[in-house]
């Protein structure tokens, strides 16, 4: 049953002091008694609120400390970077596939044209004609296949858009976490984590290794 549906308190259910006061002609005494009652209730409320505020403060401080100690804000930034790397690498891979298709398409066209020329020049039953027909149909299916391959690269755009959404979400979580950690002062006086230097590829690895006599 909801609170709104409860019947109002009847005069008989009131504490006797209040009942007497309600029925007395002494308006000032009634006001005083009512004030005292309200103050008593407020004090309970304020004590409870104070306790809540202290608990919340402790919990936030503990959480901020834990997050800072475990390097969570930094790790979140790393995760964001990993996803951006995936985005970049997948774009490169898709471009390489399109590069390949763009390079091979003119070759397929040239093969088809050469096959046509051979068919014009030789007798229809010559062995070269059979080979030219086969080359022509191979060139045509190559063109179709290469075009399909270009279209198939749209996976990069579709998956990339989802990755971007996740990166944006992580960014907002990251800034909230940093704000929390800063608020609790957990970062003050703490050493920043060491920066891990990464190399960009095999060439740089070889250069680095050569400095050590490899």
């Amino acid at each position, binding site marked *: 049953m909801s609170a709104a549906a409860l019947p109002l308190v009847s005069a008989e259910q009131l504490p006797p002091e209040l009942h007497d006061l309600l029925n007395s002609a002494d308006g000032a005494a009634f006001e005083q008694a009512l004030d005292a009652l309200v103050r008593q209730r407020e004090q309970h409320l304020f004590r409870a609120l104070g306790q809540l505020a202290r608990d919340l403060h402790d919990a936030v401080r503990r959480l901020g400390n834990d997050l800072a100690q475990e390097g969570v804000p930094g790790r979140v930034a790393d995760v964001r970077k990993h996803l951006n790397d995936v985005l970049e690498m997948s*774009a490169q891979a*898709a*471009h390489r596939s*399109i590069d390949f*298709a*763009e390079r091979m398409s003119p070759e397929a066209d040239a093969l088809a044209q050469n096959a046509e020329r051979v068919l014009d020049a030789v007798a229809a039953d010559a062995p070269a004609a059979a080979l030219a027909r086969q080359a022509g149909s191979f060139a045509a299916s190559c063109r179709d296949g290469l*075009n399909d391959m*270009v*279209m198939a*690269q*749209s*996976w*990069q*755009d*579709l998956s*990339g*858009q989802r990755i971007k959404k996740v990166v944006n979400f992580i960014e907002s979580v990251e800034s909230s976490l940093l704000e929390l950690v800063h608020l609790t002062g957990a970062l003050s006086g703490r050493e920043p984590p060491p920066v891990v230097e990464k190399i960009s590829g095999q060439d740089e690895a070889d250069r680095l290794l050569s400095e050590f006599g490899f």
Partner: protein
Amino acid sequence: MKILVVDDFSTMRRIVRNQLVELGFTNTLIQEADDGNSALTMLRAQPFDLVVTDWNMPNMTGIDLLRTIRAEASLKGLPVLMVTAENNRDQIIAAAQAGVNGYIVKPFNAATLKEKLTKIFERIAAAGAGA
């Protein structure tokens, strides 16, 4: 003929460009922009015959680009084809209400692109003949 392809993903710009060439737009100058803002700058600087745009882009989205084009006296007649992964009913309705000329949902194939482009150019030709 000049076509502007607008998409924040370079892969998709290249795919659309490839398909346009594949469909026979060989004597066409195809230019690219990576969001609505840079597209607008290009559209205001030189005349184009068609805009093929994505929806979801940073700075200025495709729908805002479309609305801006329709609101600008010198651009409002420009055909706009939307090619987007956005497939919400409300978004398609919003694009239609904003005056889009065609709407293609990604991933699309060459046949769909050809069909929508043919429709757009047929309507332009019909409007031109009627004028």
